[in-house]
């Protein structure tokens, strides 16, 4: 399912060489979720929230809760 919506979508739009997976050289198109979908009971998957999305390294969306968390955790260097 995850492969379908990531590499599958990229492949369908002829961009599998540029995005669709997290590999060196590809665009930094990322989504941060509040929980590991493989580590929770499947009933909980639907409750997962997207906290942060990046398109080519630039922030597109940030959950207000993640702003607070990231503020605390942010430690340059």
């Amino acid at each position: 399912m995850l492969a379908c919506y990531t590499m599958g979508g990229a492949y369908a739009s002829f961009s599998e060489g540029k995005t669709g997976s997290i590999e060196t050289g590809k665009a930094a198109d990322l989504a941060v979720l509040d929980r590991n979908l493989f580590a929770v009971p499947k009933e909980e998957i639907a409750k997962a929230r997207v906290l942060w999305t990046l398109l080519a390294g630039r922030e597109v969306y940030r959950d207000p809760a993640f702003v607070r968390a990231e503020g605390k955790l942010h430690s340059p260097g």
Partner: protein
Amino acid sequence: MPWTKGSGRSATVAAALAGVLLLAARPAHRPAPADLVLKNGAVYTVDAARRWAGAVAIRSGRIVYVGEEDGLGAFVGPRTRVVDLAGKMVLPGFHDSHVHLVEGGVGLGECYLTDGMGKEEILATVKKYAADHPGEPWVRGGGWPLPAFPGANPGRELLDATVPDRPVFLRSLYQGADRPDSRRGAFAPALSPGEHRANGRGDGLRQRLGRDLDEPAGGHPGGGHPA
């Protein structure tokens, strides 16, 4: 080439060459710092060669490192923004390679019905929309799932009873992509007064079989052709 003649000379050259190679190789071990580093995450790469990682480094919009945190090394410089994800999951961005952007946006401004709605919820939504938009000559919208009604048809009587004073035009969930003059569309929108004469049966269904059955233009924010 002269230096290949004496073995001592070539050994010296080889040593010098090796030194140059080592120097040249150094930048590979000391990469330029990244703009952004995500660490302590559950990074699901969707890359068969390395399914999981703990850290990702990004420079100039591109991924420059995927791996474990202890391999970040010189990617973390004084100006690198480091985000500790505390175990949160990182996925590649999702791709919707089939999206009806304009039509979807237009739909949000109409009587918006969607999958999972049952008969009562649909009718209540239509009724409320009509009450909230008294100036619109047509109640227009769509997104109703076919199984919500017997025979995939809300029927004229039901829509007439829900909105007695105006025509109602509701595309079903599966009609989004069809143009009004499409001959491919097999699904029927639901209609009420003023339009059910179009199919000659008066049953509220309007098969999309030709130009003569175009969607009504009146009262639509985008004209007669959504998307």
